[in-house]
């Protein structure tokens, strides 16, 4: 805590100077407001150069100012300019922009040439770029503006609700915490559902490498190592035509992140400063100490052989149990954060550079959690000669994450304890010391304050390339790429939080992960004649992964103050030095042809060999093909001006998934199965040399339409995706000594629709743009081998099943239908199991599915589905003069959440505190309620069975982001040497409309197969930030 404070001070000092200057700047500007120069009014008409048709919605801006208008329906405009030196800039989507000096004219008519603007708009695809209008696959692009306006800390959060077909759910609200992202549904059973991430051509490690996660199911978000301010665009490749070029890792889509590169021109220095606070979105209500004690007493009286509890937990005079603590109050806080970004971009004809640096310091809303990050990046490109270009992207990130044990169960979980720790547990003992440990539970405030859970990481992501152009259009490019992550983790539990005298424990892990590789390919792009455009690509790549972990666990440190492992009295675990490797060798090719952008064709093929599979099954082949037809270029559509652009796309292809252990096919002997101090080894994985890829076959059809000079743009896609040969851990008799063998079995289907509509609703002084996207994905398990199906399904973790015809994420359990008001209401004498007791007043009414008056396994049924019916987002941008307002809503509809945390906080079994719902509990015969009687050690399993009572509607609509920005006019800031000055306020996660009763419906304690469970993850926060952005 001390360290933190001093860091804060340092920051304050550093900023005071800056703030003073900025303040002066403000005052100076305010003074200038009154001094208006004389203005001239310019009018004119804008037409299409080819057809002579008037153009509406063309933006007209006085160059170097925020002064701008747009043309009306007849192409007319009117703008006031400051002087005759003014230059007007005319821009419109789909047309080349034009600059005209006003001079002494008062009427300026302009005709715009078609298309260059849009023709030049490129999107990044595998091993290259492609003109957006010539895409035949399905690619969604999230651009710089969306990224700038959110002020989020990592690139994945930005995608949430902004990219159709991409579902992003938070695993943890902790700073730097994990996210799970699914592109077009779950296509794998073995949890390999994460897309491939490629940053500037470097395939990067995207799974958490943290190995000391305490009780959390999730680690950190490795994408948080990328500074969003460095990002130019994020493209998500979704269909097989776009992804097949990445072959064996592309079945779950590919996320291409492109960082900003230098542009020719004078260097531009950009400074961005944001600071703000976050707090919990809502607190949940729990019982106070006396209500809690009564509930515990009731639970004893409700036992089959009622007893009066005579022990300390209900003794309000006992010094350990006389508290009345609001644990949420004690553990949650309003947490400050700030971020400073510096960047310089520029270059000459032969050398371009983009340089950036950032520092952020983010406190979490739970006591003592904090994440600090320093990022630095240099991207350079040099034209060595007409033919040879070389360049490099290099980024370095240093992160320090002071974590707390957040999610999950166990006595180390702080988040669960927020809600379920008895209020009667005293915070302090009479002697003033912390009440560190009580009945199997560590004090969560003590855990946050005194335990260590620190993660420090250093990461370098780099790409070095050389490109040589032999003849026009024929290029050879070679990339050397590297992703190096070094991480150190420390954990320490002081003896003050243990029940055993002098018992403390610590652990340390050092992890290095190296991914490196080379990609070398020829590319050819050339236009023959006027209209025949050819493209070809041929190359190979090699990629290798090395992961090494070294660690020690120790205990009995002589003091809680020396926490390094050299002080440990006993080293309890020294086996953890682990090195694993994996490699991939690939060949790939692509051919494309289009006739004048009207008829488009592309084929791809990739061959991938992976070290993970047996020698005979190493290579997989992944082909794809796509066609496009720009029907708007056909003669019959030329003479109209409603439809500006129209294109149909079709694609089909195959991709793979190799997400199994590095050595699964060879079988494994595990070291570290020690017997006391004697090191042991034992077989852990049964070999299966026949293992091979999961293969996904995907069909996609798309329609792109643009109306009214691109004022309404619509992109729609439908797809069908079938994954076969699923890699699955097939259970085998335990008499073999093994739990399962990994085999290729079964298939899954995903089909869906994606729609993106963007409109320019208002143009002129006041502008209003809207972008709306919505996706629907239907997931279905199509085929599972019969030998796996006991009772027709596979139990999948505690809450889910896998069954043919049902989606992944289907919850299965008993259906709760209320509470018996009286004993005699159980007219059929329904019993708990064949031999168990009869349900009585106060017990839950379970749906007796088979009507046999016995509640048992056979009465379990589908009680929910974690998959949303649809999800998406809507962004509205408003602009007036220098003001802009961005309002972003995000939604998910029809998904259920299995709220394990609600089970925990409505169950007396572990002496948990209860939610205030428990005040409505059944107390006596005749009570009509839906809250059953609490029973200590309940043989009827009222709370503990998997049941519909804990399944809640997880639909929500979120006001996810609001950004209000003011850009000062150039004439005010130019005298200060600035070329841009913005001030803004951003609020994220502002309001959520939902029926969900937990902290936040954007929650996912497990990813993939076990989606939609809330086990008590680190809660989401509401953040409000103000910022300043200026450019020299």
């Amino acid at each position, binding site marked *: 805590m001390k360290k933190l404070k001093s860091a804060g001070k340092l920051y304050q000092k550093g900023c005071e100077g800056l703030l003073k200057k900025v303040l002066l700047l403000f005052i100076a500007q305010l003074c200038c407001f009154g001094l208006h120069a004389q203005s001239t009014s310019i009018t004119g008409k804008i037409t299409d150069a080819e057809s002579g048709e008037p153009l509406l919605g063309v933006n007209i801006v006085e160059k170097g100012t925020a002064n701008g208008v747009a043309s009306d329906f007849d192409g007319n405009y009117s703008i006031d300019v400051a002087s005759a030196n003014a230059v007007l800039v005319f821009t419109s989507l789909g047309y080349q922009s034009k600059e005209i000096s006003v001079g002494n004219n008062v009427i300026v008519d302009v005709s715009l040439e078609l298309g260059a603007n849009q023709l030049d708009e490129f999107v990044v695809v595998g091993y290259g770029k492609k003109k957006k209008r010539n895409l035949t696959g399905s690619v969604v692009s999230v651009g710089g503006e969306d990224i700038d306006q959110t002020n989020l800390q990592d690139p994945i959060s930005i995608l949430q609700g902004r990219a159709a077909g991409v579902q992003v759910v938070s695993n943890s609200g902790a700073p730097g915490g994990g996210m799970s992202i699914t592109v077009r549904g779950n296509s794998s059973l073995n949890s390999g559902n994460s897309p491939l991430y490629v940053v500037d051509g470097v395939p990067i490690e995207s799974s958490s490498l943290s190995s000391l996660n305490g009780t959390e199911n999730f680690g950190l978000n490795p994408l948080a190592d990328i500074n969003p301010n460095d990002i130019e665009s994020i493209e998500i490749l979704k269909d097989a035509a776009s992804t097949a070029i990445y072959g064996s890792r592309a079945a779950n889509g590919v996320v291409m992140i492109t960082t900003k590169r230098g542009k020719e021109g004078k260097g531009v220095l950009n400074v961005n400063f944001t600071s703000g606070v976050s707090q919990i979105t809502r607190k949940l209500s729990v019982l106070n100490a006396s209500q809690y004690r009564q509930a515990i007493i009731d639970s004893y009286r409700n036992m089959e*052989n009622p007893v009066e509890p005579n*022990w300390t937990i209900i003794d309000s005079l006992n010094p350990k149990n006389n508290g009345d603590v609001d644990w949420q109050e004690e553990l949650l806080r309003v947490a400050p954060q700030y971020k400073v970004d510096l960047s310089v971009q520029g270059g000459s004809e032969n050398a371009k550079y983009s340089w950036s640096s950032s520092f952020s310091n983010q406190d979490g809303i739970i006591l003592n959690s904090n994440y600090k990050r320093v990022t630095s990046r240099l991207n350079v490109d040099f034209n060595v*000669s007409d*033919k*040879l270009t070389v360049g490099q992207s290099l980024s370095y990130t240093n992160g320090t994450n002071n974590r707390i044990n957040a999610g999950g169960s166990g006595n180390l979980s702080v988040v669960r304890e927020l809600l379920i720790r008895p209020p009667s547990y005293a915070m302090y003992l009479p002697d003033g010391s912390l009440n560190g*440990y009580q*009945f*199997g539970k560590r004090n969560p405030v003590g855990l946050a304050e005194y335990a260590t859970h620190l993660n420090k990481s250093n990461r370098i992501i780099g790409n070095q390339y*050389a490109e*040589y152009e*032999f003849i026009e259009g024929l290029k*050879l490019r070679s990339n050397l790429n590297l992703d190096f992550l070094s991480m150190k983790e420390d954990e320490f539990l002081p003896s003050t939080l243990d*029940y055993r005298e002098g018992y403390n424990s610590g652990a340390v892990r050092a992890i290095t992960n190296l991914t490196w590789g080379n990609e*070398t390919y020829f590319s050819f792009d050339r236009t023959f004649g006027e209209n025949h455009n050819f493209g070809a690509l041929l*190359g*190979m790549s*090699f990629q290798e992964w090395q992961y090494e972990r070294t660690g020690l666990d120790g205990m009995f440190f002589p003091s809680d103050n020396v926490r390094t492992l050299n002080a440990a009295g006993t080293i*309890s*675990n020294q086996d953890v*030095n682990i090195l*694993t*490797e*994996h*490699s991939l*060798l690939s060949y790939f090719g692509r051919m494309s042809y289009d006739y004048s952008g009207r008829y488009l064709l592309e084929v791809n093929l990739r061959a991938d*060999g992976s*070290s993970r599979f047996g020698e005979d099954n190493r290579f997989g082949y992944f082909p794809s093909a796509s066609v496009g037809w720009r029907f708007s270029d056909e003669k019959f559509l030329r003479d109209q001006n409603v439809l500006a652009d129209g294109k149909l796309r079709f694609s089909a292809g195959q991709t793979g998934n190799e997400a199994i252990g*590095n*050595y699964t096919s*060879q*079988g*494994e*002997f595990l*070291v570290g*199965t*020690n*017997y*006391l101090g*004697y*090191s*042991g*080894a*034992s*077989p852990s*994985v*049964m*070999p*299966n040399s026949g293992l091979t890829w999961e293969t996904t076959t995907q069909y996609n059809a798309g329609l792109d339409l643009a109306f009214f000079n691109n004022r309404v743009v619509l992109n729609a896609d439908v797809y069908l995706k079938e994954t076969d040969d699923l890699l699955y851990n097939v259970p085998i*008799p*335990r*008499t*073999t*000594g*093994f739990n399962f063998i990994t*085999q290729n079995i079964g298939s899954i289907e995903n089909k869906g629709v994606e729609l993106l509509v963007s409109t320019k609703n208002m143009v002129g002084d006041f502008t209003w743009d809207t972008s709306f996207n919505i996706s629907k994905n239907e997931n279905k398990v199509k085929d599972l081998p019969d030998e796996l199906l*006991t009772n027709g399904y596979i139990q999948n973790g505690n809450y889910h099943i896998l069954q043919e015809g049902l989606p992944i994420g289907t919850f299965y359990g008993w259906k709760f239908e209320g509470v018996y008001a009286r004993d005699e209401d159980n007219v059929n004498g329904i019993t708990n199991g064949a*031999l168990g007791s009869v349900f009585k007043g106060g017990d839950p009414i379970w749906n007796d599915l088979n009507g046999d008056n016995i509640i048992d*396994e056979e009465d379990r049924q589908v009680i929910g589905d974690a998959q949303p019916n649809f999800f998406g987002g809507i962004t509205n941008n408003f602009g007036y003069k220098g003001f802009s307002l961005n309002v972003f809503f995000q939604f998910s509809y029809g998904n259920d959440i299995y709220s394990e945390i609600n089970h925990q906080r409505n169950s007396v079994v572990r002496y948990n505190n209860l939610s205030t719902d428990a005040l409505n509990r059944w107390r006596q015969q005749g009570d009509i309620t839906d809250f059953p009687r609490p029973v200590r*050690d309940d*043989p009827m399993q009222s709370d503990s069975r998997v049941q519909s009572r804990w399944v809640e509607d997880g639909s929500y609509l979120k006001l996810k982001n609001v950004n209000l920005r003011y850009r000062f006019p150039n004439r005010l800031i130019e005298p200060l040497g600035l070329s841009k000055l913005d001030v803004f306020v951003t609020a994220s996660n502002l309001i959520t409309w939902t029926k969900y009763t937990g902290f936040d419906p954007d929650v996912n304690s497990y990813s993939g197969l076990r989606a939609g469970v809330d086990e008590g993850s680190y809660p989401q926060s509401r953040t409000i930030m103000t910022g300043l952005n200026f450019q020299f």
Partner: protein
Amino acid sequence: MKKSKNIIAVFFIALAFSCSKDILDKEPQSGFSAQGFYKTSSDAQAGVNGIYDAVQSTFSLNFSFWGEGRADAVNTNHSGDPLLLQQNTLNKTMNSARWNNLYETISRANYAIKYVPSVFEEDTEFGLQLVGQARALRALSYFYAVRVWGDVPLILEPYESVEQELFIAKTDKDVVLDQVIEDLIFASQNCRESFGGERDRLLITQGSAYGLLTQVYMWRGNYEAAIAAADKVLNNSLYSLVSINDWSKIFSTGFSNESVFEIGYDETQTNNLRILYAIGSDSHFFPSENFRASFEEDDLRQDLIYDVTQEEPKKIWKFFGQGFDDESADPSAQNIVMIRLADIMLLKAEAHNQLGQVAQALSLLNTIRNRAGLPELNEAEAVDMYGDLESALLHERSIELSFEGHRWFDLVRTGKAVEVMGPINGLADEANFVWPIHEDALNRNPNLEQNGFY
């Protein structure tokens, strides 16, 4: 320029083809592929240590569920296994019906038994004693399997390929026990006599193999063989009875001279003793009224075994020391004593009694009684107090070895299970003595049949 162009082209092409397919051969660096593990003598040692690791998990909870849960010394308020066992309402989903850990032990042992010899060029003592330990641990596992489920699948080879038969049916329990005895005889001949220090208690030695053999022979009613095996233990200088002052320490600190084989645990490799017996308000088991009433007067062991100060005692002190008071549902680090000298002495006494050698039987019984501060018994007194000498011996076992996981097997072995447990929970059918096979095992193996009673 042209020259440089060529150089660059050659460079790229060379780079591209410098990769060969060998780079896809990745052998495990830190673990081992299944076939590649057993190479050196330290691998062999590690493979055998790995078996003990599985033994630790197997008995952490189940030594008590299997050996005490269904018998008369304990009582419970806990739903789940404790109550199901006590009320004799066993079902196929209860935890103690799972045999996973036993077979994991067996699998690890099978790997060691197959591969350890291949590490050593000839039959060296080091290799043989390792195989001896592996075979003894396999025997221990099958001995439990037979006593808990009766007929069970007998698997003596490691699984190394999907081509092997996965779905093995049950083998007659006598065939399994024959194998158990064969393994133990091998162990008793090839294991070390002593390792020195704590390892004499933690690892399988010749003495522990004979101890286990005594238990197996008694289970099969082979009394001569049991006496012969027991003598090997009694005459072994490693073992002697501790004084009553140190009696608690047999369990609470472990490594006593009385211990023949105990499973080692520590602060990280923990077991469930505390959860089973010692959480004052909430442990799985507490001493039954019958048990508390069965003590003879002035038995010095009584207040070492449980909290006699309470009217309704809940805490079993035996494994933690007198006065142990803890409300924490945390794991424990105490070793679990599987075989100790007193057990073997009393088994030997039983065998003598069965063979009509009353004097030898009484002498052994009185040795144990003396230590507990009880007067010596002659045959008439024993008959007078307990009906017959066998009952007196069984009673002595029920006190001396209380809660150590022997009582249920003693009742079944001596044919007294129905007589004792019938009045308590209605046990009536011999076919009910075994556990059901867990549902999960049945689901995974179509060739497996549920035990008759279930």
